[in-house]
């Protein structure tokens, strides 16, 4: 059965072009032009993915994100025309999985849709052993190796790596990571995170200047590379 996608945008031109784009790739597309309508539609028939514009007429997009997240695991891709990092970060913090900034290329959006659906399909976070290319993370025994070489990480570095690797392909905001690693009190100290990421990259990446595993989302957060 074709995955169902709900597009929420108040711009008729966006709906009129994106719906055919996704339908032509075999998705079952429905649309909504306002926040409340979108929430109702999700309640009636939960889709596999929501594409959500942040500038909605009735409800703030970030608020829609938060409400969609309540008790549901539907992946959300945020469309932002504002170009403002703050809106994006707020939406990601409120539960969105990924974002694309208008004007985006159709291929870029389609790739993000595929990745989000694949992640959702993959089910629960991988436990025990995580493989990514030649990188092997043994969560239970707290060991990391690349190829034949064992990598020694401090407890915090290991915690960070596992947290990132458990959400491959998903944008994790600074705030989300800080909260997961250091607790709610540390969310306003992104410099801790920057230092730790640098330390982790030096040990993990073959070339820390061009990271392959831990990717930077400028001004927003980090993303662990997918296969």
């Amino acid at each position, binding site marked *: 059965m074709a995955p169902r996608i709900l597009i929420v945008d108040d711009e008729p031109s966006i709906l009129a072009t994106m719906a055919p784009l996704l339908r032509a790739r075999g998705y079952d597309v429905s649309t909504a032009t306002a926040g409340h309508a979108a929430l109702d539609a999700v309640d009636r028939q939960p889709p596999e993915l929501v594409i959500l514009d942040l500038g909605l007429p009735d409800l703030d997009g970030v608020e829609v994100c938060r409400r969609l997240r309540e008790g549901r695991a539907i992946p959300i891709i945020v469309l932002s025309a504002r170009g403002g990092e703050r809106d994006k970060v707020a939406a990601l913090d409120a539960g969105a999985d990924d974002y694309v900034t*208008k004007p985006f290329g159709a291929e870029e959006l389609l790739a993000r849709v595929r990745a989000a659906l694949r992640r959702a399909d993959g089910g629960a976070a991988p436990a025990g052993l995580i493989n990514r290319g030649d990188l092997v993370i043994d969560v239970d025994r707290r060991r990391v190796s690349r190829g034949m070489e064992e990598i020694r990480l401090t407890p915090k570095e290991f915690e960070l790596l596992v947290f990132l690797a458990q959400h491959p392909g998903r944008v994790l905001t600074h705030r989300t990571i800080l909260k997961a690693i250091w607790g709610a009190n540390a969310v306003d100290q992104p410099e801790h995170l920057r230092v730790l990421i640098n330390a982790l990259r030096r040990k993990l990446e073959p070339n820390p200047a061009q990271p392959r595993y831990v990717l930077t989302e400028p001004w927003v957060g980090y993303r662990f590379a997918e296969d």
Partner: protein
Amino acid sequence: MWRQIRYAAGSLAAVAVGTVLLEAAGTTNPTTIALAYLLVVLFVAAIAELWTALLTSVAAMLCFNFFFLPPIGTLTLADPHNWIVLFAFLVVGVVASQLSSSARARAKDAMDRRHELTRLFDLTRDILLTTEREGALEAIARHVARRFELDVVSIFIPSPSGGWQIHHGGATAPDLADADLNEAFASATGAIEFDARTRTYGGHREVASAAGTLTLAPIRIGTRAIGLLATGGRALESGARDAVAGIVAIALERSQFLEDRRSAELSRQRAELSSALLASLSHDLRTPLTAIRTAIVNLDTAALPEEQRREQRRVASDQLVRLTRLFDEILDMAKIEAGAVEPHRAWVTPAEIVEAGISHAASSLGSRQVEIDAVDDVGVEIDPRLTSSALGQLLENAAHYAPTGSIRVRAWTDGDGLHLEVRDSGPGLQQAELERLFEPFYRGQAVRQRVSGTGMGLAIARGLLAAEGGRVWGENDASGGARFSIAVPAPSRHLAPVE
């Protein structure tokens, strides 16, 4: 002169009255009589000046000698007794007169100080209540001239480019040589020392000018001289002058603060505006671009049915129209801000303007019904392009912000010129926003989230109309919707039917 004669007559009268009273009492004891005369001398000395007291002393002694000392009826100065009496009268007269005149001087001094304080207080109040921006320094100088009754009050501030900025507030504007000012300012910028007796920090200087002798006092903030205050027409104590200069300094500083605050507020508003502009432009540019890009990808999809292909082409071309209009608006706005809009007047009918306005707004109006009531038999000399574009902006506004119901347009002329009116049946305007609606990039609170837009439309309408002397305003219609009106002053004439 008359005053002195009056005083002399008064003192002699006092002595005469005393003599008559003593005669009437029939007193013969010389000591009692001498004491009584002494009282008269003391009384006169207490209220009159020194010379009156001396005159009284001599008169009293002569009367005492003539009327009461034997041999009565003669003046016998040879008696040493008389000299002692005269000496006693003179000493009492001089001492009492000195005491009283110094007391009077002190009282006058205190009075003067009080007046001065009152004037300074009034001046301070005047200055604190001054909020005018243009000519603030002139206003300060005027206040000083009025409160201290001075003919000449001028404030000289050295301008950064050399020379002096001069602000006159008195009835006469003195013409002082730059050299005098430079010299006075140079001496004022030296060391300062407080003189407690004259209550002044010094540095005052007298200069001669066509308006008489003027005194230049330094205007200081703290110890730093920032300018000079010239006063003339009435002598002002140097302490008072320093106090006035101090108040002027505070006023200057205050007006500078007010100016700074205003410009800070302005730049804050400008920053807010430009960030609002960027956000709205960013949305208005990116959305059509996204739609066009996606439509092109869709058109490349081989499997797309022909009907959907047409739909994609339509969306793309609509979005191109939208982008074009946005660029037109940006250009219009830039032209208006650069003052580059020039009116070209021509004779047209109100009906033609309405027709052009509706075609300008055609894409926004779509299939909306527009009720037209326009005069077509009167010509009016206006710029048809500017006027119809402005009307088009009002119609687009009505189409966007009153999405349902009818839109009514009225156009007519009268003795003042052309009048246009656009009424909708939307939610109407908020009273508090009526003024701000026409500011560039301002968007109504209630519609900001609901309707996308740049906030340029009404500002463009106002800018275009202003170029031909016209104006536009908004209000709520009695029927509930919004009503926007345009008035363009222009000659009009009835068009006779051509046979």
